[in-house]
């Protein structure tokens, strides 16, 4: 908390990407805003202040402001991050904010993650594939607490899109699953309630848009605000899909 050591608050200079696609006169550019830093100032506080006191047209997204909902991913000094939990005290005085790449721009810092994630969920059929209908009278199926905990670990992704934005492949191919998509697949693959066969999984995740399209640079794992073990996810999926491929070869 460097600002607490000195009594003089810092003057923060924000350089923010601006473009309003709904305004025919708008051209992509950046604007500079200067505000005084306050203790425990997050980018949520700072951006709200800029909008309310400097430029009421500034577009950005926040909802929970507690790093839970995943709305506020943006590029902070060149790196994807959740704005609500980024404290200005951890940043230099000059702060550059850009929208996440790889997603369609809605305006300024706001991007359309909803369409991307719905598309990914549809392509990977990211739901439990069960053989039986729900029986409201029956006791729940048992599961060991360790398996539940392992599934929960994969379920923690908040779909903020930071991994997608950081991914070289996802920036070129909008069908590529990226870290969040791979993690989603692995989460269902390890769930004993999902009855998909290995061959069905192979169709979902093998190929250039899935695990074999990944170049292995693993920026996704570096930027994930939830610190999901994306390296392990990637290794798990490769192992599973390669296993299926070799088995298929043996059969021939």
């Amino acid at each position, binding site marked *: *908390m460097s600002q607490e050591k000195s009594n003089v608050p810092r003057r923060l200079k924000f350089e923010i990407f601006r473009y*309003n*696609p*709904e*305004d025919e006169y708008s051209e992509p550019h950046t604007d500079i805003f200067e505000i005084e830093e306050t203790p*425990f100032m*997050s980018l949520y506080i700072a951006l709200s202040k800029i*909008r*309310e006191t400097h*430029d*009421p*047209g*500034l*577009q950005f*997204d*926040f*909802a*929970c*402001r*507690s*790093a*839970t*909902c*995943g*709305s506020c991913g943006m590029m902070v000094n060149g790196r994807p991050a959740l704005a609500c*939990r980024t404290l200005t005290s951890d940043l230099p005085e000059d702060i550059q904010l850009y929208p996440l790449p790889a997603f369609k721009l*809605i*305006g300024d810092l*706001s991007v359309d*993650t*909803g369409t991307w*994630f*719905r598309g990914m*969920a549809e392509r990977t*059929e*990211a*739901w*439990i594939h*069960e053989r039986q209908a*729900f029986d*409201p009278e*029956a*006791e*729940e*199926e*048992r*599961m*060991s*607490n360790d398996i*539940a*905990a392992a*599934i*929960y670990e994969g*379920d*923690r992704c*908040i779909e903020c899109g930071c991994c997608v934005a950081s991914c070289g492949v996802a920036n070129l191919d909008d069908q590529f699953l990226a870290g969040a998509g791979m993690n989603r697949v692995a989460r*269902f693959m390890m*769930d004993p*309630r*999902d009855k998909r066969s290995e061959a069905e999984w192979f169709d979902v995740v093998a190929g250039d848009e899935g695990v074999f399209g990944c170049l292995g640079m693993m920026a996704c794992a570096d930027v994930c605000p939830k610190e999901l073990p994306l390296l392990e996810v990637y290794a798990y999926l490769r192992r599973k899909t390669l296993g299926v491929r070799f088995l298929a070869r043996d059969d021939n």
Partner: protein
Amino acid sequence: MNARLTTTDVLVVGGGLAGERCAIEAAAAGHEALILSLVPPRRSHSCAAQGGMQASLANCAKAEGDSPTVHFLDTVRGSDWGADQEVANIFADEAPVAVRELAHFGVPWSRVRGGKNQYFIKGEHVEIDEALEKDGLIGQRDFGGTAKWRACYAAAGTGHAALYAVDSEVVRLGITVRDRTEAVCLIHDGSRCLGAVVRCLRTGTHFAVMAKATVIATGGYGRIYGQYTTNAVINEGTGASIALDTGVVPLGNMEAVQFHPTTLSPSGILVTEGCRGDGGYLLDKNMRRFMVEKEPVKQELASRDVVSRHMQQTMRDGNGVDSPYGPHLWLDIRHLGEEHLRTKLLEVWDICRDFAGLNPADALIPVRPTQHYSMGGIRVNKDGESYGLAGLFAVGEAACWDMHGFNRLGGNSLAETLVSGRIVGRRVAEHASGVSLRANTGFAFDALAAAEKRADDWLARSGSGRNVYEIRDALGEVMIGKVGIFRTGDELNEAVVEIGQLLDDCDNAVLRCKDPGVNPELGFALRLKGMLRLAMTVAMGARARTESRGAHFRSDFPLRNDEEWLNRTLVRWALHESDPSFSYEPTGLIDLPPGHRGYGSDERIEMKRTIDSYNETVLDEQTQHGRLPSSEDMGSRLKRGAWQAYVQ
């Protein structure tokens, strides 16, 4: 998709748990459902629910003997007898099914581990043998105001896990979700709801949706308390607000506002009740566990209204910890140990690190009570259908169904979203099957033109009026300062005057942004008047209710008064009227007689009438107040006297 008018069978406004679960039921019955959501649905505020979902599965040792009837008893006592007891009973009966259905949808519930387990209970370490034959069943943790361990959970991310599972079902069924859209007014003919006018938050354009049934599932109105809330910035009560605007649909018990005991100071970010359920405790500035003295039986696990009042009083007595942001108290979970904190309370661990810069295994957490939940909302019958407009339904926090009365128990809201989503969804589907889409589009185009004119008027207005964000901040200060945990007639009078002034200011406020497209300032301005009107109904309702019940506490009328106030506040207020009109209906059929809650004060003013004579009036009086007939008779789901087996 850019049509000025579209149609669907079932229009669901709100993409959180209640709305999505309701849409699933309608879609599964073969109807076309359309969900509108301010944000991609997985970002809805349901995702922020942390600690658990109440359902009497009774799988843990400390849950032994639990049943829907015990859950019913806890819920009615928690509500301070403000709940509709039949609804509380329906809820308690169906909550276990809703939890198991979520398991079917994929929620990784924490499971019972048979054998020795280590717990903390009332600050003491205990070892308990969990039955081996229960191994692998869904586990429970303790929560406030309950007789048994009943909160089913997935670490401290229960709402997140539930929302992702339910949304995956929405995707599986191919239900259309239009994210970044906002319903700005209802289309109706005075007796039937015909759909809604919607503003697109990508382009700023308006369009109308006509539907056979319309469901409001927009959550609570916490943001009328400004920054003094745990709620997301999107919880501005728009659903309740557009229902109020019709003048036909009443809102129920708007003065019933919950303050959560443990929110991070000063940001107001929620720290789950599961911390206290798992054995955490509260400390004052002298490191004293003040709750042990104040509530010897339940201690930190009394209901939220009771714990919040004791905390506020402790700080008023000078025993809070001073900080530049005002006083706070401490939540101590250090003794639970790092392993527990990084598994069962992982989200609390993250929040402490990210937003307070502390490690809860080593350090105390600064907490204070903050606005958290809206018990009030759109008044509906047990089918979820609104009073006043056929074909308009409400579910979840947006509704006053009313199982929470004047205080909701922790973990009962997540359970309500799924239970009411299932039940109301079925009624919505039946309603949609029974009516045809009305061909008269005149109401829709009139409402659309009015909504567009409202936006144009904002953009056209000029002068020296106030800025909309200043008005919002001023409202928050009035609400927390004068319509907070402790209320008095004098302060409520001041609040009513001040909110009235802010309403005038809002009518003269001027936008600085005139940009085409989304225009976030215009988007907020369009909600501001509705927020102020909701705040007025809260303040006036609180001023009129001269008793203390649940979370509504009047320092000048400190007793619960069952003789005069065993009723529900209803308020109607058409957009063009200058003042709201209040009326009062019986809470519902009484099965469990009003009594002591088991925590908090045992003093109250007793009802002199017999329960039978009270019950005789309920159906007629509620009908006079606008209640529409439910598909089953009133009282059909009440298990009269079943509670007697559980009470000495």
